[in-house]
C-alpha cells in the first residue's frame, strides 16, 4: 500500500517520496503495523520548565523497544529538552523542573524514590558536541562509565575492543589506544562517545543531534552506526536533518513549539503526513 501504483504521478505522496527516497529504507519499519514492538519508554503528559516558561507543553509519546525513534522539529521546539527529560538530565540545569510521567519498563522515572543516577545508567546519552574526557586515553574513555561507577570490567581489553568494534572505530584506533581521546578527529570522537555509552550496555541510548558538529563523511559513518545499533538498542535521536531522520529511524515524532504535532512510523510521517503543519515543515515551508 505504501507505493500503490495507482497513485497519481504528481500526487502529494509521490512528491514526498521523491524528496525522502530512503524514508522506506528501514524495511522493517512498518512491515507489520499491527505487531508494533512494545514501548520501552513512555512519556505521559510531560511538561518541562525553564524557570516559569514551558519548553514542553504536555508530551505523550512512546519510545518503542529496539527501534530508532527520531525527533524532528525547528530550533527551540523542545526536541533536546524532551530527550534530556528521558534520562533526567533536564534537571541538571539550575532553575528547571519537570511534571508528568516518564515510564521506563513501566516504572515512572520521576516517581518518588527513583535515583536519577540509576536511571542514567540504564538510559545512556550522546551529546551534540563530542565530549570525550580530555584527561583520559581512548581506552580509558571507553571504560570511563564502568570505572567512574566503581565497577570492575571483567576483561577490560575485550570490553574495549567490543565497544570500539560496535561503533566501527576499532580498526582506526587499535594501535593508538593509549592516546588522548581528544587527539581524534571530530567524527572519531563522536563514535568514541557512542562507544563510551555502549560500553555500559544501556537499555536506551539518547542521541541529541549527534551529527550536527560532523562533516558529511563522519555523519554517514555515525548514521550507519545508528542504523546497526538500532536493531539491538532502543534509540532516540534528535535531529535537525529530516533526511537523516528518514534514513535512520523507524518512528518519527514532529515537535513544534513544545508540542507533539505528529507521531507515526517514519515512512508514513514523511510520505503521508496527517497534520498540515508536519507537511509544511517537511516540505520546507517553514522551520
Amino acid at each position: 500500500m505504501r507505493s500503490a501504483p495507482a497513485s497519481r504521478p504528481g500526487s502529494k505522496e509521490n512528491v514526498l517520496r521523491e524528496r525522502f527516497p530512503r524514508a522506506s529504507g528501514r524495511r522493517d519499519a512498518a512491515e507489520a503495523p499491527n505487531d508494533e514492538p512494545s514501548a520501552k519508554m513512555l512519556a505521559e503528559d510531560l511538561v518541562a520548565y525553564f524557570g516559569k516558561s514551558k519548553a514542553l507543553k504536555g508530551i505523550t509519546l512512546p519510545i518503542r523497544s529496539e527501534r530508532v525513534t527520531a525527533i524532528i522539529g525547528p530550533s527551540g521546539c523542545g526536541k533536546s529538552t524532551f530527550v534530556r527529560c528521558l534520562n533526567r538530565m533536564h534537571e541538571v540545569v539550575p532553575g528547571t523542573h519537570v511534571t508528568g510521567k516518564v515510564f521506563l519498563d513501566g516504572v515512572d522515572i520521576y516517581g518518588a524514590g527513583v535515583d536519577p543516577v540509576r536511571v542514567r545508567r540504564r538510559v545512556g546519552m550522546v551529546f551534540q558536541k563530542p565530549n570525550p574526557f580530555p584527561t583520559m586515553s581512548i581506552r580509558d574513555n571507553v571504560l570511563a562509565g564502568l570505572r567512574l561507577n566503581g565497577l570492575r570490567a571483567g576483561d577490560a581489553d575485550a570490553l574495549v575492543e567490543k565497544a570500539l568494534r560496535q561503533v566501527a572505530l576499532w580498526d582506526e584506533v587499535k594501535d593508538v589506544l593509549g592516546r588522548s581521546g581528544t587527539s581524534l578527529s571530530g567524527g572519531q570522537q563522536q563514535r568514541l562517545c557512542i562507544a563510551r555509552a555502549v560500553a555500559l550496555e544501556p537499555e536506551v541510548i539518547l542521541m541529541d543531534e549527534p551529527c550536527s558538529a560532523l562533516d558529511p563523511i563522519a555523519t554517514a559513518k555515525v548514521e550507519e552506526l545508528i542504523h546497526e545499533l538500532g536493531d539491538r538498542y532502543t534509540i532516540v535521536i534528535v535531529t535537525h536533518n529530516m533526511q537523516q531522520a528518514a534514513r535512520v529511524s523507524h518512528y518519527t515524532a514532529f515537535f513544534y513549539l513544545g508540542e507533539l504535532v505528529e507521531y507515526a512510523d517514519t515512512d508514513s510521517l514523511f510520505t503521508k503526513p496527517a497534520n498540515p503543519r508536519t507537511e509544511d515543515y517537511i516540505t520546507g515551508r517553514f522551520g
Partner: protein
Amino acid sequence: MALSYPARKAIDVLARALCVLATLLALVPLVSVLVYVAKAGLGSIDWSFFSELPTPAGEPGGGMRNAIAGTLVLVGLACTIGIPLGVAAGVYLAEFGESRFAKVVRFSADVMSGVPSIAVGVFAYGVVVLSMRRFSALAGGFALGILMLPTVTRTTEELLRLVPQTLREGALALGVPKWRATLRIVLVTALPGIATGVMLAVARVAGETAPLLFTAFNNRFWSTALDRPIGSLPVQIYTYAVSPYDDWHRQASAAALVLVAMVLILNIAARLFIRVRGGAK
C-alpha cells in the same frame, strides 16, 4: 578616510614596536632584581651557608640551615592548611555556588586577598599565639595558610568554571553521581591550572615577612618543633639586612638568592610534574 597600504603598514610597525618596548620596560625591574640578588648573593654562598647555623654576632662564618628548614616547615604547614581548604571552597563555589551563602563566600575571598599580610599576622597572633602563650611554627604556618586561602579558592573556582559543561554532562549521563563526576572528571581536567595557581600562592607566601614577625618569630638555633619559634629566610633576611655587620649583610643577600631560587625550583618542579602527569597516558 582610507589610508594607503604603506601608511597602514607603517602604523602597524610603529604599534608593534611600542608593544615590544613596553614589554621590555616591564621586564627591566624583574631582570634587575634577579641580577642584583644574584650578584650580591652568589659571592657569599658556599656549602657552609646551607650546612651551618648562624654564628653569634661578630663571629665570621656560619650559615642559615635553620632558616632554610624553617621556611620549608612553614610553607609545608601553610600548604597543609591552605590547599585542602582552598580547593574545597573553590569546588563548592564553582559546582554548587549559586546560593546567597556562596556569594558571601566569594565576596569574602575577594576582600581577603586584599587584606594586608600584617593584618593576617595580627589575627594569627590573636588566635594561635595568645592561646598557646608562645610564638610557634604553627602560628606562622597558620598565618601563611590563611594568606594562601583566597588565591587558591578563587583560582580553583575560575579554573573549574573553564571546564566545559559538556564534560560534566557527559559524566552525569554515564550514571556517575555528581560528587564523583566533580572529583574524577572536572577537578582532574582543571588540575594543571589549579596546580599553577597553588604554586603562585605558595611563591607568594614563601616570601612573606610581616605575618611571621610575631607568629613564628625567629630562631637562631636549629628547631623543627611545631610548637616552638622557628627561623625563616624572610625574617632572617630582614634581621640581617638591618644589622650593622657587613658579614650579615652579605648573608642576607645570599639568603635572598636562596629564597628566589627555592620559589623558582618549586615552580619548575610543579610544571614538570603536571606535564609528566598530563602527557604520560
